[in-house]
């Protein structure tokens, strides 16, 4: 990886000061990864990546500008920093802009065990072998699995260094491993794709390739023969990954930028009941080895654990220091940052606390309704809460899963949907950075034939 260290970071900050900046931040990210793909047992692709980028944000009083570059030589960096300071002078001052309160920077960084140094990048041969195993298990699962979009195994190692002109400087590394399989089932001339995956910061904690393959195949086969249902209002049960997408939608509306812009259905709702009282949603950036854990956020503030929704009540918004100043609240350690962009806000490890019901009990409670297994489209409006997405899944009759359904939509308003979460499953599994157990919403509009 490219040579970049705290000394060079300090040099960049000093250059910004000499160019007239009153404050500055520097962010350096580097990464190396290998993606391996097989299809129908044969190698399909190998992709090897290596990248490093430098980003800065400079302030001239309360005006700011951001910039990024791949040129890391001092000779190139100097004009780059000068140009950025010039850019900041052209920007209007914003009374709320600036670095975070210096007293909030962490003195010590917590060790979060984000790096699997025993494994690092998994070599091509081994990565291909894992993908092959997973796809083979999928293909062998059922004679109706006749084709495949392939299986892929990726590994990556990343580094972040962040420093600002008020003396904060920190760095951390991380690794990530993931395996995904996408077999295709075919019957009566119609095809359906299944997909399943496993992902972790530690290689040894991935699920077995064979079981990932088998689940992906089950998911493909159970979609075969899907039909439309008549348009009606009925209960909708979301399987865990689909329930997680609802949590993400709610959190988008609870994020600082949507709120101060008035672009959220949760404006002025802090302290109010926004979901049924069985719902508690927690954002925790400090989980050991969590997929979205980090010792400090995109502004150098410590990440935190907090209930965003507790027993149905909206307890906190997610804020960086800009949004916090705008809303007269405190930052929550949720600033996220991509090189070359100003900080924005995002959740870290986010989860809906599990309830007590098994998924079978939840499905068993439904006389007639939908078990959603796939959602497509972007029909979620954060401003109004209006929700309308394409869905497919399995129809529930008298508490039993019956036949697959497809080419239907589910619609409602997130405000009503969250108020009518009738049951929450006990089946919470950390398989991505936002997770939820199975949930049941008492009624939505299902549009079909």
């Amino acid at each position, binding site marked *: 990886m*490219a040579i970049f260290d705290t000394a060079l970071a300090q040099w960049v900050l000093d250059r910004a000061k000499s160019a007239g900046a009153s404050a500055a931040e520097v962010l350096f990210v580097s990464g190396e990864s290998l993606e391996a793909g097989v299809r129908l047992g*044969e*190698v*399909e*692709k*190998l*992709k*090897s*990546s290596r*990248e*490093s980028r430098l980003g800065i944000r400079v302030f001239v009083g309360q005006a700011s*500008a*951001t910039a*990024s*570059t791949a040129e890391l030589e001092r000779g190139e960096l100097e004009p*780059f920093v000068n*140009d*950025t300071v010039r*850019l900041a002078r*052209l920007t*209007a001052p914003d009374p709320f802009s600036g670095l975070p309160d210096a007293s909030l920077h962490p003195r010590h960084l917590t060790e979060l065990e984000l790096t699997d140094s025993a494994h690092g990048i998994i070599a*091509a041969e081994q990565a291909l072998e894992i993908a092959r195993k997973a796809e083979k298990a999928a293909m062998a699962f059922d004679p109706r699995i006749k*084709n*495949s979009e392939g299986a892929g195994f990726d590994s990556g190692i990343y580094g972040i260094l962040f420093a600002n002109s008020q003396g904060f400087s920190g760095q951390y590394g991380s690794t990530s491993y993931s395996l995904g399989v996408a077999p*295709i089932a075919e019957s009566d001339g*119609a*095809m*359906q*794709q299944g997909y399943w995956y496993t992902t972790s910061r530690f290689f040894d904690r991935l699920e077995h390739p064979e079981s990932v393959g088998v689940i992906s195949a089950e998911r493909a086969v159970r979609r075969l023969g899907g039909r439309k249902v008549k*348009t009606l*209002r009925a209960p909708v049960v979301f399987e865990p990954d689909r329930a997680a997408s609802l949590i993400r939608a709610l959190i988008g509306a609870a994020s600082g930028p949507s709120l101060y*812009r*008035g*672009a959220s259905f949760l*404006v002025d709702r802090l302290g109010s009941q926004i979901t049924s009282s069985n719902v508690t949603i927690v954002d925790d950036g400090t989980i050991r080895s969590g997929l979205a854990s980090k010792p400090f956020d995109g502004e150098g503030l410590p990440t935190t654990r907090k209930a965003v929704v507790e027993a149905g009540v909206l307890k906190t918004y997610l804020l960086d220091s800009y949004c916090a100043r705008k809303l007269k609240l405190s930052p929550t350690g949720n600033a996220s940052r991509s090189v*070359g*962009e*100003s900080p924005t806000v995002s959740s870290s490890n986010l989860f809906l606390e599990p309830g007590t019901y098994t998924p079978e009990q939840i499905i068993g409670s439904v006389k007639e309704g939908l078990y959603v297994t796939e959602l*497509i*489209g*972007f*029909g979620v*409006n954060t*401003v*109004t809460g*209006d929700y*309308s*997405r*394409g869905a*497919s899944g399995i129809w529930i009759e008298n508490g039993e899963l019956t036949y697959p359904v*497809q*080419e*239907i*939509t589910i*619609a409602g*308003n997130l405000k009503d949907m969250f108020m009518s979460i009738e049951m929450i499953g006990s089946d919470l599994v950390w398989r991505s950075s936002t997770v939820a157990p199975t949930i049941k919403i008492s009624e939505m*509009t299902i*549009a*079909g*034939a």
Partner: protein
Amino acid sequence: MTNELVHPEKFFASRFGVSDSIFERVIGSALERRADYVDLYFEYRNAEGVSLDESIVKHTSKNISHGVGVRVCAEDRTGYAYSDEVTFDRMRLAAEAARAIADQRGDRPNAVQVGQPVKTHALYELQSTPLEVPLEERARLLREIDRVAREADSRITNVMASFAAEQKIVMIVNSEGQLAADVQPLCRLNVTVIADDGKNRQVGSYGGGGRVEYRHFIEGERWREYAVQAVRQAIINLDAIDAPAGEMVVVLGPGWPGILLHEAIGHGLEGDFNRKGTSAFAGRIGQSVASELCTVVDDGTIANRRGSLNVDDEGTPTSRTVLIEKGILRGYLQDRMNARLMKMPATGNGRRESFAHAPMPRMTNTFMLPGESTPEEIIKTVGKGLYAVSFGGGQVDITNGKFVFSASEAYLIEDGRATRPVKGATLIGNGPDVLTRVAMVGNDLELDPGVGTCGKDGQSVPVGVGLPTIRIDGITVGGTSA
């Protein structure tokens, strides 16, 4: 930096010291294994953004990136490696990593001689690019938009406007000796407003752009039109009633609703899915997949459009590909690898997001040719249905053909007239089937104003869509009013 002044080959030579002999050595290294095809993709991108929110120009940004991607193809296998350091050593390492997918060979490869130029289109010979317009001027335009939007209606509570401009210099050198290069300007102006009448809060968006000069936005006060349209949409939606639910007759307005074609047809006709037999359209060339009123093309050669390219990201000149002709499926969108494996011509649709990505078949500007009906005639024929004029995003499941696209401005049709506005709703249909239900095609083809971005397999590329007004006799509308 005008287009004419940038000569990509000289630019990369002077900036990174690369030369024909370096290309030949790197490609030669990749060919030490049994590869069918090798290419190097050089890219230098300069992008600037300025954005306004709450009447303040809050953010300005400038991002410069560059790098080289080395691709090795052997049969249906692809090896790809890239580096953001454009040096001979890094390229050679990338070539060694990428060639790992190819088998060992006993013989020595033939030497490659590069430098054979590819004749490209000249679709965006700009006198100047928006990057040359002083940032103050771009910021002033955003403040004007803010003022116009707020003055248009007192219920507008916030305006978010952004102007993004970039210039990409690309060069592709391949093992067939070809060398293609292009300078690709691109810019986009977006306006989003929030309206609040005390009871309801709503959002409206509009924007446009393309491979155009800054004055594109000034001419005829296009920028003002963007602001006014965003406001109009937000205000109309304040009074929107619940959208209907169920299968019904839907009339799509011209322009942006062409996203229907992009999702329902375009992705399913990309060569990779059809070679692998994973698309719902696989093996259906020559079959009827639409009503005979429908002719759909993908055209990367329209001057100054967002989805157009002089040469695709593999060095093939773009073309106009007929996908559906009077209802019959005619062709696929191909990059070089899938074209070679399917023994079909490459159509100039091999695209990639950046040097960090291998190319794959992608759309350019996808639209339906106009028919004969007037839009008024079409609406008049509908007793009860939905008239949708503006859409947000869409998505498709290639394998089963089901696609969605979400209306952001729509009206009920009652007794042949568009009446009350309805809330946004997702429409869902089946790609191989939806166009068979097209009963009328308007004479009012429009291309979208130039803001579309398409995502596939983690890669985003700019695209265009277009449509005349059409009537579809039966598609499921996902409202709440059952």
